[in-house]
């Protein structure tokens, strides 16, 4: 996972093996990505055969890493040193674009 802030995060309610001292509230990170024309054409061709769309898989992975990074930097700006209970959500805002959202609770741990 791309996390240059080096902040631990987990999707459990407590960080395994450490205790939470203080909560800093909900932090979110989101990114809206649209697929480009060439990838759309490629996906249209793949719709003849069916199966996995590898280009989209990678694109969504990168976008999700970016959303996580933004979430962690918001947590860092609040003075937290970890994020717990991370959740992901995806919504389509416009035709071909989708929003990837990562949210969690920023906490200070021992």
């Amino acid at each position, binding site marked *: 996972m791309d996390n240059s802030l080096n902040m631990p995060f987990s*999707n459990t309610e407590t960080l395994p093996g450490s205790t939470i001292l203080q909560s800093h509230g909900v932090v979110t990170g989101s990114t809206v990505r649209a697929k480009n024309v060439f990838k*759309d054409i490629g996906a249209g061709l*793949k719709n003849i*055969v*069916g199966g996995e769309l590898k280009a989209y898989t990678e694109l969504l992975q990168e976008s999700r890493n970016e959303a996580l990074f933004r979430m962690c930097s918001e947590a860092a700006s609040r003075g937290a040193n970890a994020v717990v209970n*991370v959740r992901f*959500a995806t919504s389509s805002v416009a035709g071909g674009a989708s929003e990837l959202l990562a949210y969690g609770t920023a906490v200070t741990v021992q």
Partner: protein
Amino acid sequence: MENVLLQIFVNLLLNSPWIISLYGLLVYQPMKKKALKEREQASVKYGSATALTTLSTPSRPDEIQAYKLLVANVVMSPSWIQTFGGWFRSLFGGRINTFSKLLDWARREAKQRLVEQLEASGFDEVINVRFETATLTKSKNRDDKTTGFEILVYGTAVKY
């Protein structure tokens, strides 16, 4: 002679979507599913296939050394034959077999990727595993033209 060749060429050109999609349905997709089954059996042998749990507490909470969020995703698209079959079936209602098979395949694939990430990272167990599903739509006709759907699996890997 030239006429016959031309006729074959034109026939091939006209029928190529059919040929390619039948190849996809009868050869390509079963091949991928078979490969997935082999990978699943390999991880059952390795012992990591049973290391996933949706519980939020690890089995040995006192001995945890490290943890890490693992995320795996897959985008799967139905072929246009499957889309048409699903539309046709939805006229009558009932179970749409092509879509349920495809979704099942995608979910197993995503889960298998999480298991393989677990094997590669050397962690022991994945706790609090969650599944998410989202649909991707085409940019032009935005209502029912589904390009594909994304399956996302994530969980916290722990090391004892």
